[in-house]
């Protein structure tokens, strides 16, 4: 893998916004984000260009505060770009052309609902599920939620309230809520941050199976380079705040990957390379 050559890519801002040559799931064209105005303006994201084809799995890594969550918020249309264009499914982000599943960095479970009700929420909101929600409520949907919860090791916690769960358990519920409605575009913001190594590796495998099964487009933010390498087809590295993408590399290992792979010399070499790159840009 030759990453060094990519570090000095042409400045993202220079590239002109283009119309779509191919079907893309996510297309950031020189999108930047500035919070506030005047003296107090904070640039959270320098003009950034990033493209994900349908079915891509991209991991986004970079130092804390560089704007990774901001990119996810752009794609999910929680904020609008200060300049540039954000296309999702070939349309403006606000059109919501793709069905989005998002796992927030803080698992924001609604405190008045049980875990089951929280995880079921997307089925209540997102078409076509919402149309059959009332009739189906007790049956199929519920089984589906329980099956998914069991898969991440939360069987038996469906009727608990969020405050009765540990941080890691909340994070797993958060992941379930992002997956339950079979999204076309999965936005995951450090979904395994609060988990121990074993649970984490288990969930990597579950996520990989899920991905290979349905091939959604995935944008995964993570601090764990092994996680990025194990799961993603491409790894994008961002510079320190205000961030932009300084390296975009394919991971040339066929999927499905085996967990033992992360101890192989090639894999270690790749993560080492990424590590050095991030160490440089942190300065």
């Amino acid at each position, binding site marked *: 893998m030759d990453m060094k050559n990519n570090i000095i890519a042409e400045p993202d801002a220079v590239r002109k916004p283009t119309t779509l040559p191919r079907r893309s799931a996510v297309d950031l064209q020189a999108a930047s984000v500035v919070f506030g105005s005047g003296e107090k303006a904070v640039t959270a994201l320098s003009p950034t260009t990033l493209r994900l084809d349908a079915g891509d799995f991209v991991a986004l890594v970079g130092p804390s505060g560089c704007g990774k969550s901001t990119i996810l918020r752009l794609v999910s249309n929680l904020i609008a770009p200060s300049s540039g264009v954000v296309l999702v499914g070939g349309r403006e982000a606000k059109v*919501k052309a793709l069905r989005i599943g998002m796992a927030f960095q803080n698992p924001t479970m*609604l405190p008045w609902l049980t875990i089951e009700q929280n995880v079921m929420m997307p089925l209540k909101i997102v078409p076509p599920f919402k149309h059959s929600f009332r009739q189906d409520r007790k049956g199929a949907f519920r089984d589906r939620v329980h099956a998914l919860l069991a898969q991440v090791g939360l069987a038996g916690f469906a009727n608990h309230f969020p405050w009765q769960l540990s941080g890691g358990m909340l994070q797993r519920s958060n992941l379930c809520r992002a997956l339950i*409605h079979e999204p076309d575009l999965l936005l995951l913001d450090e979904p395994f941050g609060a988990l121990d190594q074993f649970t984490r590796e288990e969930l990597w495998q579950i996520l990989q199976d899920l991905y290979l099964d349905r091939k959604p487009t995935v944008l995964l933010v993570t601090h764990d380079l092994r996680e990025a390498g194990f799961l993603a087809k491409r790894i994008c590295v961002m510079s320190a705040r205000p961030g932009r993408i300084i390296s975009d590399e394919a991971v040339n290992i066929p999927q499905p990957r085996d967990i033992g792979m992360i101890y192989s010399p090639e894999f270690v070499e790749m993560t080492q390379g990424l590590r050095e790159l991030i160490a440089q840009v942190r300065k």
Partner: protein
Amino acid sequence: MTEARRIKFMSFSLIFGFFLMWEVLCIVLNVSDLVLPRPTEIIATLWVKFPILWPHILQTLYSTLIGFVLGVGIGVTLGVLVGTSRVAYAVAYPLLVGFSSIPKVAVVPIFVLWFGSGTTPAILTAMVICVFPIVVNIATGLATTEPDLEDVLKTLGASKSEILWNVGLPRTMPYFFASLKVAITLSFVGAVLSETVASNRGIGNVMMTASSNFQVSLVFAGLIILAVLGVVLYSFFSFLERRVTGWATRDTDIAIT
């Protein structure tokens, strides 16, 4: 004895001790019946007069509850309107606080002027007096909803009304029920007050009439009825609050089904 039962026992003893002290002091100090009747006399009057008092109790409850229901309806509607719009909240909030600090009893003469004496001014007073705490609480609850919680639904493409139903309103419930407890007490006060001034029915009117006829023990009997009704109404809404918004206080007993 559990902690909860001990506390119940102690507050019961306190109430009992209060009346015992009252009885004893009246006897020892030889207080006239016309100034302060003894509790036993009051209970006796209550017992004897209860068949006559019953329709008045119903009347007072009727005015209170109708006024309360109307007040809650108006309060919730206004609260949602003010709370869901940032601009409306900023503009209307100071006005609301101003309104709610007007002593609402001052409106009783106006209602009597417009509608004559009777049930109508009692209902309207009960209504007006309880609207503002509800509006203020609903608006505050909605306006302070954590953006993070709303973001969860926004990413799913939820409409404004879906966000209101699934996040804004549930999150506002603790505020709403807290204000209901205050509102029901206020409505009750308003109804009784209006009856005192302008009605020929209701406990308020009974007390007023008894007072002008020097039936002092009947006045106190009325007072006890009011106290009991007030406690019953408050307890009911307090119970409802715990059932519905247990998540906010982390009641464990609502958790496992």
